[in-house]
């Protein structure tokens, strides 16, 4: 499919959707915004090694493929065990607030490029659409499917751009690191100067608004800076800043949040490199949970997903190379947790994808789709045609409580 056809197709769906009788429930729901549920998506950039994070210890072929990488010690279910680097999440597992999906992937195959892989992950399209052709991200298209939302509803947090949440739907993005010292007159004149350039009018206007609000909220939030699960967890200042700012928003009007964490591209020395990345992911989850409070966390689903998994075999330098299927982490009080989901394909040579990678047995859009359907009641047709065009949503995996 050519890009133009694809975009025209989406536009047509979006236009007809408003008038479609099936859409009424959604339209009505938008009167109350998205209700009370929160969806947080974390993009893990660089290709997380799902096989190292959720280790299939009882698979007969596993240890032989990875003689140089340390074995996980925290038992999950179904013969899987969790990497020590996520040890701080054990209380969530016990409380049923944590689940994993194994052997899942986007539809991206064979080329194993970070940039294409992330592009497809965030566009939410299949391999039938040219990579890079979709100009909006799937989370933004979900926002578009719920007309009448305010920008405050959906937020991208952090310095990095988030194609996942980019598009025609109203969203905001912010990093809690900037302060502006301006007179009232200065603010007005800036708005005047931005006015005729739409890009600057929007971005500059939001910058002025957010920097003002942040000064007000700055004093209120001054939480503890130590570990949240002693002995298992350590603070990361940048992660904490982000999580605290996000939690303030999530306690307020925000229902959709997007983050990205990098550092997963472990081509060498994985035994040392992966724990660092896991520690940051774990801290983000723990800090969001702590700062958003029991009531908000109880209505939250956080999904952490990556562009691809890594090779089943350890490479020649104590690391792993770009692969295909990997794992997804799902956390939150609204999750029916304590489970490792997905069909396990096995690691015998013939079971591997291309005889080198973990075989994908599910499309990660399936899980994200059911989460959105469960949280916000999105119609199956909207999910299969608009949010994830061409996806067969399949049957309900019962992700949520």
């Amino acid at each position, binding site marked *: 499919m050519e890009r133009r056809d694809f975009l025209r197709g989406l536009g047509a769906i979006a236009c007809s959707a408003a008038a479609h009788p099936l859409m009424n429930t959604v339209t009505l729901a938008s009167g109350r915004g998205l209700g009370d549920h929160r969806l947080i998506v974390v993009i893990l950039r660089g290709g997380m090694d799902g096989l190292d994070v959720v280790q299939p210890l009882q698979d007969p072929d596993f240890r032989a493929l990875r003689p140089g990488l340390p074995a996980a010690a925290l038992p999950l279910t179904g013969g899987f065990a969790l990497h020590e680097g996520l040890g701080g999440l054990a209380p969530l597992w016990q409380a049923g607030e944590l689940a994993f999906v194994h052997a899942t992937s986007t539809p991206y195959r064979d*080329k194993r490029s970070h940039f294409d892989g992330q592009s497809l992950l965030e566009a939410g399209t299949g391999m039938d659409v040219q990579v890079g052709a979709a100009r909006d991200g799937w989370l933004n298209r979900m926002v578009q499917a719920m007309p009448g939302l305010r920008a405050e509803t959906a937020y991208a947090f952090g310095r990095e751009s988030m194609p996942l949440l980019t598009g025609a739907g109203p969203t905001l993005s912010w990093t809690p690191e900037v302060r502006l010292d301006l007179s009232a007159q*200065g603010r007005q004149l800036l708005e005047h100067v931005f006015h005729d350039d739409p890009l600057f009018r929007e971005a500059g206007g939001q910058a002025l608004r957010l*920097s003002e609000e942040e000064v007000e909220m700055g004093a209120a939030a001054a939480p503890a800076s130590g570990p949240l699960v002693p002995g298992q967890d350590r603070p990361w200042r940048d992660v904490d800043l982000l999580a605290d700012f996000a939690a303030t928003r999530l306690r307020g009007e925000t229902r959709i949040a997007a983050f990205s964490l990098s550092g997963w591209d472990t081509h060498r020395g994985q035994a040392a490199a992966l724990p660092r990345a896991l520690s940051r992911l774990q801290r983000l989850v723990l800090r969001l949970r702590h700062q958003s409070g029991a009531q908000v966390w109880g209505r939250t689903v956080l999904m952490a997903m990556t562009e691809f998994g890594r090779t089943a075999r350890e490479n020649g*330098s104590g690391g792993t190379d770009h692969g295909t299927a990997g794992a997804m982490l799902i956390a939150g009080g609204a999750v029916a947790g304590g489970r490792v989901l997905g069909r396990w394909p096995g690691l015998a040579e013939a079971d591997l994808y291309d005889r080198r990678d973990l075989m994908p047995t599910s499309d990660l859009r399936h899980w994200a789709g059911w989460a959105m359907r469960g949280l916000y009641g999105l119609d199956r047709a909207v999910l299969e045609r608009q949010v994830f065009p061409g996806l067969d949503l399949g049957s309900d995996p019962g992700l949520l409580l």
Partner: protein
Amino acid sequence: MSDQISIAARRFGYGLPLSEGAATSPGAILAGLDTADDMARIWPVPGMAEVLPILQHAQAGRRERRMTGAPSETYETAVRLSRQVARDAARATIARALDAPCGFRERLVAFWSDHFTVKARNPPEAVLPEAMVTDAIRPHLSGKFADLLIAATLHPAMLVYLDQVASIGPGSPFGRRRKRGLNENLAREVVELHTMGVGAGYGQDDVRQMAELLTGLDATAAEGFVFRPNRAEPGPETVLGRRYDGEGLEPVHAVLRDLAARPETADHLSRKLAVHFVADEPDPALVAAMVQAWRDSDGTLRAVYGAMLHHPAAWGAEMRKARQPFDFIIAACRALGLDGLRLASLPDRPVQRQLIAPMALMGQRWRGPGGPDGWAEDARAWITPQGMAARIGWAMESPQRLIRDLPDPRDLAQRSLGADAGEALLWAVARAETRREGVGLLFSSPAFNRR
């Protein structure tokens, strides 16, 4: 409306005001590339040969640390030295951009340094990206792309950053003895990012064969670049249907020359240059002219730049690109009259605080793009709420810390934007309560941030 001088300065250089006698016509801008590289001489940055002792120190320090189990003073010294070299290199790079009579050359250096992105992955390596600019990028700016590609691919900074130093032919003597194997990282990026482009006509097999072909390339602290025959995968390899056999570096050079000569490479890089300099969605006729020049000249970069500079579509009056944070800060400093000498007189601290740290806040950490694909081009990637907050914050605060007396904002608007200042901006700047806010308004404005 923009006139030719303003377009030449902003689109192909670091903005107005231009220095006396600066080039503004396509021919003169191009001819500027043929002169000696004065900026590299006046504001030098060490190459690989000069930084090897630092890396040797770091290596000795690591060994000490392993033996004694305690922190090593030798290692800490190496880290300190490396950081100082990197800080000085950042300063030199800024000074070159401030002082360059031909801003186009410095802009090209930035473009190719980004195209061949390398990053430091531990503190002693901070010297490597700077050395690569000195050794590989600056000397090959306007010659054959193939020569630039070979110099960049074989540079120790690249071999380390993209894990080539950890890739061993599994059938080589070293690989068999130590049971070590391939790492595909560099092979993939050379094909995907550096030459043909993502999604061009290559497959996983080509990447794999390319990785086998590149085995043997290595870098050490003792020697810098080395070729190690005992790590090279034996036997011929086939990449994109062509068979490479032979010993030593010869097949590596051959495959890089062939990749440089692919039509996909001409398309990919012509378009990338046009996107960087002219517009996020460049006129197809402009790109076509550059591709034609690439083919007619066997990939001579000067000819491709020439096709761009001589094409009418490159001189459209509408400024559609957003200045990247580095370019934004340089343009503002030039407008304020800051030059290399004044910069050299500043201590490290204000340089870090007023120039280097703010770039990171605007989304462009010094030598720190997210991955090997470098910085984004799209204006929307830079002009975001947080990006704008950081630009406004800098515009309001930093100028007064960089020069003693702030100029009249109205004069500054004329000097830095010429006819592009526009009435609305001049109206607003004249109404600011203070010089500080007037200057801040000017530097925050769309007119100043676009090029």
